[in-house]
């Protein structure tokens, strides 16, 4: 549970530090007119950005707990370390490329460069789909070599971690698909969606690197 606790402690500590900063040396009982100082815009950010950051905190907590479960379960006697398929390296590279492609698209959207949006979104989508297909092929390889989900807890966790991560990617793909449809139908350039998605893609890339690193090292 230590890992879960550390992540949670970081999230909570940053929130609490911020809250305390906002609340010390304030004399709430004093009435005063509405001034710039009396309005605490917490972050100069749009609500959707705040919501996304909150969601990322929730997902961080989720994966930190899965990792905690992994490390606790690992200590029990029946754990036989799994040799991860080499394919995962390729998949990782693809996911890195997807993140880069999204960043490229995002920069285009910010710069108002509408021509780059369509290819950018398409390439990102293709790369991300390729990653998911690659993960599925890794599952197939493991299955073929006799590592079923019930064979060993190490195998079970492999399927669990990759599965959960893939589901989060799929959730992101839903937003990506909506943004893509909007861009291709020519309504608008879906700038906000693309920006938020890019952050989400980078985040899931980091999550994947952590999970992959964890599985490699154990």
């Amino acid at each position, binding site marked *: 549970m230590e890992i879960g606790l550390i992540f949670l402690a970081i999230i909570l500590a940053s929130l609490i530090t911020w809250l305390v900063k906002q609340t010390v040396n304030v004399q709430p009982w004093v009435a005063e007119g509405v001034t710039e100082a*009396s309005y605490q815009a917490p972050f100069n950010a749009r609500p959707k950005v705040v919501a996304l950051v909150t969601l990322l905190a929730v997902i961080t907590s989720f994966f930190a707990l899965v990792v905690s479960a992994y490390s606790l379960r690992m200590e029990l006697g029946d754990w036989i370390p799994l040799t991860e398929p080499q394919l995962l390296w390729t998949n990782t590279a693809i996911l890195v490329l997807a993140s880069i492609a999204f960043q490229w698209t995002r920069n285009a959207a910010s710069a108002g460069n509408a021509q780059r949006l369509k290819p950018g979104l398409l390439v990102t989508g293709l790369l991300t789909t390729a990653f998911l297909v690659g993960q599925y092929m890794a599952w197939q390889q493991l299955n073929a070599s006799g590592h079923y989900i019930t064979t060993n807890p190490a195998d079970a966790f492999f399927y669990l971690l990759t599965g959960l991560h893939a589901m989060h990617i799929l959730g992101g793909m839903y937003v990506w698909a909506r943004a893509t449809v909007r861009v291709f139908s020519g309504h608008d350039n879906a700038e906000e969606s693309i920006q938020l998605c890019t952050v989400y893609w980078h985040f899931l890339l980091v999550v994947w690197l952590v999970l992959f690193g964890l599985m490699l090292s154990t």
Partner: protein
Amino acid sequence: MAYVAIADRDHDEEHHDPQTFITKYVWSQDHKVIAIQYGCTAIFVGLIALGLSAMMRLQLGFPDTFSFINPENYYQFITMHGMIMVIYLLTALFLGGFGNYLIPLMIGSRDMVFPYLNMLSYWVYLLSVLILIASFFVPGGATGAGWTLYPPQAIMQGTPGIDLGIILMLASLGVFIVAFTMGGLNYVTTVLQARCKGMTLMRMPLSIWGIFMATVLGLLAFPALLVSAIMMLLDKTIMTSFFMPAISSMGADPGYTGGSPILFQHLFWFFGHPEVYIVALPAFGIVSDLLSTHARKNIFGYRMMVWAIIAIGGLSFVVWAHHMYVSGMNPYFGFFFATTTLIIAVPTAIKVYNWVLTLWEGNIHLRTPMLFAIGFIFTFIHGGLTGLFLGNVTIDLPLSDTYFVVAHFHMVMGVSPILVVFGAIYHWFPKITGKMYNETLGKWHFWMTFLGTYAIYLPMHYLGFAGVPRRYFAMGNTDFLPDSAQDLNAAITVSALFVAATQILFFVNVFISLRNGKKADPNPWGAASLEWQTPDTPPKHGNWGHDLPECHRWAYDYSVPGYEDDFIPQNVSADVAPAGRDHGGEH
């Protein structure tokens, strides 16, 4: 940059007025309607859970009398009662119900920042409730694993509902967590981003602080439940061994290898303990506002109250293993968790002192909401004090599986939050419905509920000391228990049925008042917080008419010296002195 309140910036994001009955009351995106939908659904499932507890009490009070209650049913009743009350009633009611209703109104916003997501949150919650209720009717019935759903027994032969019951239970929890996350993102973002001009964090009413912090706890803690539900579901359906140890079941080998039931307990209580505070913090906040308003005094130690809420929120994540003393652990861990558990008593005690000191020399109006709020102080102190006993490893070990624990947690997170729920409903009833409730019925409801619950739970402490084990279908022939234990059990059952029956008063009151209640004054209690200053009662879509309010002061300007009125609403400017302010001293 010229400063514009964020609530103003998005005025071009349309707030369509709903046109038809369907968009107004069914697929509504208005936070007030969603709050009422959440509230009604939560209270409805709460009534089911109340019925289940009545059945359990019938069995315990009068064993061998009711042929329709067998041991399997009894365990199903326990499980569903606990799960519904904690998650589907209290969490949903406090955050989905009161959170939705109060946050935008109290911070001076027109709605939640994501109305569509808010609507989705309710309907997904409803789906989780339907899945939960469906589990009563599937073959094998609902799960009887206890609300903690501990493996291995939760999915082993011999426990009721191991076919579809447990699967539906876990699925329902998963769906609920999705619903809660959608709602929770909304509440957090709204509190952070949509406050009106002048509404600094330290001017927010404590209700909002409590709901906000509880939402943060929920967002970070529910993932633990989701993780354990997913892993248990895999253990159940495709025979992985995350939690299931190598075990033989009725002479056969079900095929599990070396999983860790303790791992489940860690994950479950990592969620389970913050869950206690997800229920308690909104109650803390709301009760502070009720006490202050009806005692006509500012809340004592507002800043301490805020910091206590924050501290409790932080500490609630490092005490979970005190639920697992009997599972066995390294003595140093036990020492650590006992210490953190007792430390939580400090901010909690600060809150209790501050509530009592708020009443001190106040102009106390014993209206129904105030009665419930004061009743809460009593039940919470009682439940909290027994928590200090149970937080110590050595005292917990003998008491853990007795009725002492049942009495403790029902007092502290059953009765106490429910009293606040009732107090809050009576308090905001005039604003929500535009009608006054019946004060006489309300007072009867309070006294019968308050005294009745004491008649239920006070004797349970003695049963616990005597060693009556909890979770048992029947005591059987247990030598160390005197016969009078059974008499006490019968008395508890009578009280429980009485309390359950008196809740009819509440519903009668609500229905009569809705039909024939007196038209409510916009601000019948003379409350200072923003939700009482809306141009319409009940507030219309968009809450504030043409202009958003501006906040000039905290929510607790009651009985300010020199002012004629004994309250100053938050949106009254600091420069405007009500009549009589400056002349009072000269005569």
